[in-house]
């Protein structure tokens, strides 16, 4: 019989999840602040 697979790997790093969530957060910031800066550029409404 071959080696038995372990249930988990203690050295596992969720790099895919990091990349996905980081990309999501960066996109959220870009979209939010693009609208925010557009509103600021249009001037005051008092």
């Amino acid at each position, binding site marked *: 019989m071959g080696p038995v697979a372990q249930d988990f790997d203690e050295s596992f790093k969720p790099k895919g999840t990091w990349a996905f969530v980081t990309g999501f957060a960066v996109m959220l910031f870009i979209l939010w602040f693009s609208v925010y800066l557009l509103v600021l550029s249009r*001037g*005051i*409404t*008092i």
Partner: protein
Amino acid sequence: MTDDTDSQDASAQDPADESPWPDGVVEADETFHSEESADPPDKLVEPDEHVHIDAYEKNWIRIAIATLILFFIAVLFAGLALGIQVPSDEGRVDPNTLAETPPWSEPGLRTIVEGEEYDMYIVASRFSFDPNQVAVPRGATVNIYSTSSDVQHGFILRDTNVNMMVIPGQVSKLSAKFDKVGTFDFVCQEYCGLGHAVMFGQIVVEEPVEGE
């Protein structure tokens, strides 16, 4: 017979066998407090172990909270420090008697300070604005008051933050300062009927006339 009965009663009251269950059935507490457990029952589970949060999750909770705080501060800065406000409710007016109620009986531009500040009263009704064109000098601040004589309309002024609902019975107000010469189109952005698409007007910003 009597002796047998006595012996059965004596065995039923034997203190070594108080369990009401048949042989082989143990109570739940006996299982939980089995002899295999090295720790006393009251120390089997520490309370803190119930709320364990993974380190990754903790970090993302912190980032989410920091993002909300950042957005909240940005909105406060725009609203309080820069003066970008949402439309305010300036009062009530009866839409059925709008034509007889000043200043709505004569909508249009009124000068507050020549060349600097103006009040603009605009009535929306299917399917036009009254007035649908006004002219102001560059640098002027225009206080726009609007209401509707029939159904719900909208008023959005292109390239500015002026964007408000025009509601029958309510006066909405927003102010804008026009620092650039040009034509600013405004349209109804709330679907009000078949003629909604032709409901528009303009604010024309002109160079101030010398001497005024």
